[in-house]
């Protein structure tokens, strides 16, 4: 992500500049790394038609934005087990037996079977799971085809990571802001812990901001590395983010530290908010969060008086019982302190007018209202579904020039749990065909036993993948996917920021691997609607998208790697905010219309269960891995050979386990095993369960699913009503009751030679 960096004029005068020398036989390509979802601009070095090295960009605005996962990509993507040809299941579903077929054979059969399912059950019987940034060149084409076919049932991991935040931010001020790290005075991290090898650009921005004097406030139950560097660390209880923010608001409102002029002119609902906030005196907040009231007050004062301050997006608040309220409270803090759309604050960037954006490509207008209302989850948890977001059409058109703004692809989604229930035959109607692209759904959402049942109940499963993941093992067809080394890419910053970036193709895809663009083009053909994806090649498609610049994609990419929109601030003074009232809605008119509390609130934990005395959290990214990926790469596994469960010494002792033991973490839904690592950075009674673990070297097929049944944290992630956010229906992953016990049958697991442990506090 590009962030303009502040500079001192004297430093410019003293500047020296040297180009990196080129090496004989090596050509370079400017690329965007897709080893994770951060999308760092990097350089690929190519020899003999193959990418042999990934290094940091030569462009100083992207300098050093590279991590170990990017560095290792040339080897990781050359792994001998990469899927290079289309595979068709030949045994029972989940038998792990496949045979090679051609793309033509596969697509012919897929098209025929999908049409049959739609004829029998309706178009809504087709669900798709993906994340547009994992698959990169999807660019909304999947949604476009689904909208033409008539299915609203698209789900994604963004339902509990950024996409949902985008949708909920709209309720307050109509867009999803991005913090201006380059000139902010104070950064608040809510459980988030960017590091050198994880969320690398954010780590770079935060450290740079600190180096020039910006303050850092960290809320985190763990003593994370960010907490260690913070000016103020609030070690709150897992899952109590919303309560903490009520405490901040109480201080800010009582002490009149808010921006009175902005509140008076640009918000509605302040008096009602004030009443709600008064329900949270600091002693109550201290009880709910476990933090010292003076520290809470001090942090609130720093946030409100050091500004402009930013609360960058955090995946932590996204995954809680009070997620909607928590996200709304972040938006309210930003707003009443006057930090919205000002330099150093929270920027509402809007679309880049020179590019056809993905929301437009998706063509949501062609899906009928009747089909939109069938979107799974709409009835009970509508916040990010069509039902919850359709009222933004008029205000979005007024402010941003078009009706649909599918920010971070999270604003028109089905609810994952409801979709899996329908797939399992327990929903309001059957879903019988399931496609997933660049996505390992079995392990990426809550309630893995339900997801497994759902997948086993399908008539057609299609996967577009690079490796034989546990989910792919359950598919009817696995179609080989290309990688970011092997095709160009136009990156629109997830529709969140207005900057556009370009990535060059550096090598040919191996075997018969194809891009998501080609996948969807072939699906459109197989569904007898080739006109829906009319472009012959991805380059043609990109030419169409960038035509507003007056240049072709090839011309643009030869000229630059980034296309900026001219920055503008406080644009709301001309257009109002993209909400029904045109103002910042501290009290949300739309949530009220949907039947929910229009003000944020706090649902406390269900009563303590003596059988499960500890609380666990999951979702942390380990440096060598992204989500469920990268475990096939020897260098990455050597750094983290086995899943590690973290406890502190006191809690470990109480559980009767010790450093290095194999332990089980159990709750009402399931259990996983891992090696215990005792960390003094962990608070009492909190368990850290690593996310996304399976072992590609283990047996494939339903019995083991390559270790997913042993290690996958999704088996512990509940989605019963007490553990779901009301408005969104997303699961509470930060404070699930559990217990830790010794694992009885010891597993022979020799750590790989040269294994290194992660830094202690992550």
């Amino acid at each position, binding site marked *: 992500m*590009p962030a*303009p*960096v*502040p*500079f*001192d004029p004297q*430093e*410019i005068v*003293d*500047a*020296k*500049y040297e180009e990196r020398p080129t090496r004989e036989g090596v050509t370079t390509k400017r690329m965007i790394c897709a080893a994770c979802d951060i999308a760092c601009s990097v350089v690929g070095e190519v*020899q*003999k*038609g*193959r990418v*042999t*090295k*990934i*290094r*940091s960009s030569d*462009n*100083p*605005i992207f*300098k*050093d934005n*590279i*991590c*170990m996962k990017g*560095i*290792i990509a*040339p*080897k990781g993507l*050359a*792994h*001998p087990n*990469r899927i290079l040809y289309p595979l068709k299941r030949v045994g029972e579903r989940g038998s792990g037996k496949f045979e090679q077929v051609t793309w033509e054979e596969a697509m012919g059969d897929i098209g025929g079977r999908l049409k049959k399912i739609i004829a029998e059950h309706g178009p809504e019987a087709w669900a798709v799971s993906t994340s547009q940034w994992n698959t990169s060149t999807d660019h909304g084409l999947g949604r476009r085809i689904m909208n033409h076919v008539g299915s609203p049932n698209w789900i994604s991991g963004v339902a509990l990571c950024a996409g949902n935040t985008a949708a909920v931010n709209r309720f307050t001020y109509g867009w999803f802001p991005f913090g201006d790290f*380059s*000139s902010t005075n104070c950064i608040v991290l809510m459980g988030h812990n960017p590091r*050198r*090898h994880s969320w690398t650009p954010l780590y*770079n921005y935060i*450290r*740079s901001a600190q*180096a020039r004097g910006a303050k850092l406030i960290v809320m985190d139950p763990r003593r994370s590395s960010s907490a260690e560097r913070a000016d103020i660390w609030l070690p709150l209880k897992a899952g109590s983010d919303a309560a903490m923010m009520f405490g901040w608001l109480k201080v800010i409102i009582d002490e009149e530290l808010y921006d009175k002029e902005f509140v008076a002119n640009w918000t509605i609902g302040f008096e009602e908010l004030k009443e709600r906030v008064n329900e949270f005196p600091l002693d109550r907040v201290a009880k709910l969060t476990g933090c010292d009231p003076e520290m809470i007050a001090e942090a609130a004062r720093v946030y409100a008086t050091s500004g402009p301050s930013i609360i960058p997006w955090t995946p932590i608040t996204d995954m809680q019982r009070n997620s909607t309220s928590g996200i709304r409270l972040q938006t309210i803090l930003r707003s009443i302190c006057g930090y919205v759309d*000002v*330099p*150093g604050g929270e920027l509402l960037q809007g679309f880049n007018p020179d590019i056809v954006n993905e929301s437009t490509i998706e063509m949501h207008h062609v899906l009928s209202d009747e089909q939109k209302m069938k979107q799974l989850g709409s009835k009970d948890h509508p916040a990010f579904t069509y039902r919850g977001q359709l009222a933004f059409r008029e205000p979005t058109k007024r402010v941003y020039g078009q009706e649909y703004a599918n920010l971070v692809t999270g604003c028109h989604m089905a609810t994952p749990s409801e979709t899996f229930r329908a797939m399992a035959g327990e929903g309001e109607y059957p879903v019988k065909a399931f496609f997933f692209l660049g996505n390992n759904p079995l392990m990426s959402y809550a309630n893995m036993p339900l997801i497994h049942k759902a997948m086993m109940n399908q008539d057609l499963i299609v996967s577009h993948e690079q490796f034989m993941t546990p989910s792919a093992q359950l598919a009817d067809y696995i179609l080989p996917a290309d990688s970011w080394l092997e095709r160009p890419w136009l990156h629109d910053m997830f529709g969140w920021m207005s900057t556009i970036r370009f990535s060059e193709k550096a090598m040919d895809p*191996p075997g018969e691997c194809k891009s998501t663009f080609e996948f969807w083009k072939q699906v459109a053909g197989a569904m007898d609607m080739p006109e829906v994806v009319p472009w012959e090649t991805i380059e043609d498609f990109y030419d169409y998208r960038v035509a507003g610049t007056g240049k072709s994609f090839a011309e643009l990419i030869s*000229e*630059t*790697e*980034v*296309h*900026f929109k*001219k*920055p503008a*601030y406080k644009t709301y003074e001309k257009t109002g905010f993209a909400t029904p009232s045109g103002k910042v809605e501290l009290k949300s008119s739309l949530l009220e219309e949907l039947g929910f509390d229009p003000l944020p609130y706090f649902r406390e934990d269900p009563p303590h269960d003596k059988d499960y005395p500890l609380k666990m959290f999951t979702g942390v990214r380990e440096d060598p891995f992204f989500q469920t990926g990268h475990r096939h790469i*020897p*260098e990455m596994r050597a750094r983290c050979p086995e899943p590690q469960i973290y406890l502190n010494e006191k809690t470990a002792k109480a559980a009767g386990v010790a450093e290095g033991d194999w332990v089980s973490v159990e709750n009402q839904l399931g259990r996983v095993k891992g090696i215990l690592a005792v960390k003094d950075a962990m608070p009492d009674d909190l368990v850290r369960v690593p996310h996304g673990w399976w072992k590609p070297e283990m047996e494939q097929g339903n019995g083991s699913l390559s270790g997913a049944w042993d290690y996958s944290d999704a088996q512990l992630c509940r989605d019963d009503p007490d553990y779901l956010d009301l408005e969104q229906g997303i699961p509470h992953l930060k404070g699930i009751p559990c217990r830790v016990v010794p694992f009885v049958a010891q597993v022979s697991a020799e750590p790989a030679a040269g294994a290194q442990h992660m830094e202690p506090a992550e």
Partner: protein
Amino acid sequence: MTREQKDIRKKQRSARLQIWMAARSSRNKTFLDRLCRMMITKATSVDPEKDFMRDDFIDNDQGFDPDELDRYQRGEKVIVGQ
């Protein structure tokens, strides 16, 4: 215009200048582009001992040999390290 408003305007101008320079720096074709790149490079440089982005794994990476990667992909040979 209040002092606060003046301050905001100043910051807005500064931000616009930064984006303009970043765009120039990214293009890196003309003399002016290269000057912008040079200035940003200098402005973002950190003393090595204070450089929080330095990392052995990244800084010492030598990449891979293309023939060895070919053999690895064919399953003929395991690459032990970089």
